[in-house]
């Protein structure tokens, strides 16, 4: 019995955990959890490398953004790897692009002569190509070299700009090259990044009208943004079956990279709605801890671009904890930070509305949260709000205090967060008793203290009823209705019965009328243990109490009463291996011994031998066989034909199917009819000649 105790308790915990789980996955800024996840995802292989150039760059860049120190020890190897590729004459623009950026991120010292060669190669690529990816790699490589302190100038910037712009589509998306018919959002992102790079590398100002056209393209691109109904925005390809499909994370990351880079070089502000920038930030934070190295790089790099961009810097409202206990008088704490968790400019956070679990408005009172400068936390005592235990949606409003910040930061105005308020539930007026069916008799009622295990001992027969009642009240004095209220009766033979205790406005009360339950109890008399389980996510003192026992006297089982089910010794054994299923095949027919069958096979040949002997006795001969060469040939062919047909039949029996047989038979029969007719008509003419002669 003691062994069975943990099972319901574990179940209760599981249910509690499950009820917490959905709201714990909300948006939080980048934290140490991301750092350890990134360190795990980008773990170098045994020889200290990260794989190919692209993966190496992604690892190095992610570590750089997250400020992880552990890549420093590996930088020597990565620098050498990059330098090899930079010096190699066979490197493509893509290889050079990644190698240059690795050197830039790690600060590897690269000879100016090597870079001169790379610059020449990349410029040659720009001159010859019409592919967007080639432009992107070359321009990106040149820009990175320039950022590393070398003097790189793109002299024909204007024409390159036009060449890339020529690939754009009317809806703000881009094509990969002039021959391709498919346009892609991902391509739009890298095109914008390449254009931004050209502007930085140009020796002269790019025509401002061209810049305005690109700005307009960005507007149109943001019209194709997709959204979830919780304010999350993301980019994805229009046709997910396209050949170059990258998925929403890579596509969104590409656009964020392109748009923020372009916004950094263009004069004036891009006219993009702040909520979409905030929605993109929520999208990348909503990924949580990424599952793959690629996703991790795209998430972290995109967030680093959003952290400091010229369009809008998103400010994220998040709760350090979503569970507040009334017992320990928790404060409602709210953090407003950038995506990387750094402090926001001075702002006010107001609590404007609290909604119950059924979207009922609990309070509309507007309360300003106080600001704790040391911890960068806005807080509010929840006691004055008069909020009871339960699940709530809390609506916050953020307002920036400095008007000039309105053009730099985006807060999203109202933010809704769901929280759980927990507290101690008082259990009162618990009573258990046995009453007779006719109401006139006295009830034996015992008071219970449900805060500890009790040991009541009751006895009843099938004409009586068991009554159990209690009240649950919240800290604010309301009736509390937990998710789970169960009464369990467990017989000595481990047969269990579970009853849901129904709750009314005032109290929880269950009446078990044993007369109607005898069949359900399998007519099992004897001792039943009573247990009461009360549990809820918002109830801090959820319990599973043993109440005592009940001696039940039930009538003898009639003939056809159902048998109690067999109880498993271990409740977990039902998850164990099942008994093997034995397959029953049809029993083979009895066959005679082989010798007997062979003997009879021989026996069937006896009549044939008798037939041959009889033929000899009759003096049969082949004198009638035609002697002339022509008819003799036909006669032989006729016999051969009949033999062939019989042979075909044997083959049909052994391996051929009916259709093959009929096909061959058709040819054989035509042949046979022909030669048979010749032979027999010859024989016929001979015999008539003999007769007439």
């Amino acid at each position, binding site marked *: 019995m003691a062994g069975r105790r943990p099972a319901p308790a574990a179940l209760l915990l599981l249910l509690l955990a499950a009820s917490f789980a959905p709201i714990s996955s909300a948006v939080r800024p980048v934290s140490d959890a991301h750092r350890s996840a990134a360190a795990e995802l980008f773990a170098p292989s045994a020889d200290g490398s990260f794989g190919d150039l692209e993966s190496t760059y992604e690892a190095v860049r992610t570590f750089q953004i997250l400020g992880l120190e552990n890549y420093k020890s590996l930088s020597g190897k990565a620098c050498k790897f990059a330098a090899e590729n930079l010096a190699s004459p066979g490197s493509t623009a893509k290889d050079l692009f990644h190698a240059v950026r690795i050197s830039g991120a790690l600060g590897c010292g690269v000879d100016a002569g090597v870079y001169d060669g790379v610059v020449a190669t990349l410029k040659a690529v720009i001159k010859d190509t019409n592919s967007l990816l080639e432009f992107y790699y070359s321009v990106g490589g040149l820009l990175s070299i320039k950022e590393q302190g070398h003097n790189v100038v793109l002299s024909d910037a204007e024409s390159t700009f036009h060449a890339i712009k020529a690939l754009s589509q009317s809806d703000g998306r881009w094509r990969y090259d002039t021959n391709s018919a498919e346009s892609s959002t991902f391509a739009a992102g890298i095109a914008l990044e390449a254009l931004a790079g050209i502007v930085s590398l140009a020796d002269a100002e790019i025509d401002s009208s061209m810049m305005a056209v690109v700005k307009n393209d960005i507007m149109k691109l943001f019209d194709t943004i997709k959204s979830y109904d919780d304010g999350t925005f993301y980019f994805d390809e229009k046709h997910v079956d396209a050949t170059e499909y990258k998925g929403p994370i890579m596509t969104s990351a590409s656009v964020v990279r392109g748009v923020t880079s372009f916004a950094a070089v263009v004069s004036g502000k891009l006219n993009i709605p702040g909520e979409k920038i905030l929605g993109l930030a929520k999208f990348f934070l909503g990924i949580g801890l990424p599952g793959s190295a690629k996703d991790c790089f795209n998430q972290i790099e995109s967030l680093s671009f959003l952290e400091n961009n010229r369009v809008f810097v998103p400010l994220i409202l998040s709760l350090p904890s979503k569970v507040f206990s009334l017992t320990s008088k928790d404060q409602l704490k709210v953090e407003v930070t950038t995506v990387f968790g750094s402090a926001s400019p001075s702002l006010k956070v107001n609590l404007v509305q609290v909604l119950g679990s059924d979207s009922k408005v609990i309070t509309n009172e507007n309360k300003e949260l106080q600001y704790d400068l040391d911890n960068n936390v806005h807080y509010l005592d929840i006691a004055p709000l008069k909020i009871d235990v339960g699940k709530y949606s809390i609506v916050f409003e953020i307002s920036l205090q400095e008007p000039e910040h309105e053009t730099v930061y985006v807060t999203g105005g109202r933010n809704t967060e769901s929280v759980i308020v927990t507290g101690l539930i008082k259990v009162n007026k618990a009573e258990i008793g046995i009453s007779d069916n006719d109401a006139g008799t006295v009830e034996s009622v015992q008071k219970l203290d449900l805060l500890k295990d009790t040991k009541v001992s009751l006895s009843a027969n099938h004409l009586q009823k068991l009554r159990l009642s209690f009240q649950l009240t919240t800290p604010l004095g309301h009736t509390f209705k937990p998710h789970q209220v169960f009464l369990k009766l467990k017989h000595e033979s481990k047969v269990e019965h579970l009853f849901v205790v129904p709750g009314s406005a005032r109290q929880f009360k269950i009446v078990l009328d044993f007369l109607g339950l005898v069949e359900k109890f399998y007519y099992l008399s004897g001792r039943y243990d009573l247990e009461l389980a009360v549990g809820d996510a918002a109830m801090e003192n959820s319990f599973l109490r043993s109440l005592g026992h009940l001696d039940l006297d039930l009538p003898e089982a009639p003939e056809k009463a159902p048998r109690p089910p067999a109880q498993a010794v271990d409740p977990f054994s039902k998850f164990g291996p099942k008994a093997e299923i034995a397959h029953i095949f049809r029993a083979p027919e009895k066959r005679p011994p082989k010798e007997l069958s062979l003997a009879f096979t021989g026996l069937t040949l006896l009549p*044939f031998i008798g037939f041959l002997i009889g033929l000899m006795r*009759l003096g049969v001969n082949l004198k009638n066989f035609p002697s002339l060469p022509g008819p003799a040939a036909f006669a032989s062919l006729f016999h051969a034909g009949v033999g062939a047909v019989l042979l075909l039949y044997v083959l049909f029996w052994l391996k051929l199917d009916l259709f093959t047989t009929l096909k061959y038979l058709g040819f054989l029969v035509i042949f046979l009819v022909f030669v048979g007719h010749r032979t027999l008509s010859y024989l016929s003419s001979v015999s008539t000649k003999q007769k007439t002669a």
Partner: protein
Amino acid sequence: MPRATSDAKLLIQSLGKAYAATPTNLKIIDLYVVFAVATALIQVAYMGLVGSFPFNSFLSGVLSCIGTAVLAVCLRIQVNKDNKEFKDLPPERAFADFVLCNLVLHLVIMNFLG
């Protein structure tokens, strides 16, 4: 009873004498019929001994023998010169029919043999 035995002996002897006058080609057919029926009987005896498990094989074996025996009887009727009914039918034509029917019969038998 000795009279009855001698009567029977007489009867068989006269039957044997009368049969000796039968043309040889009819005797060949008779022999063939006896051969076929004897083979069928052996198969039936085998079936009685061990049971009829591959019943289709048993049936095709027996029916092959019986069928060809019946066809041989038909051939004998047509070839017999005493049967005026088939006077105009040359024996070669009857033999051709016999061969053709046997081929069809055994195609079916082989299909059924399993």
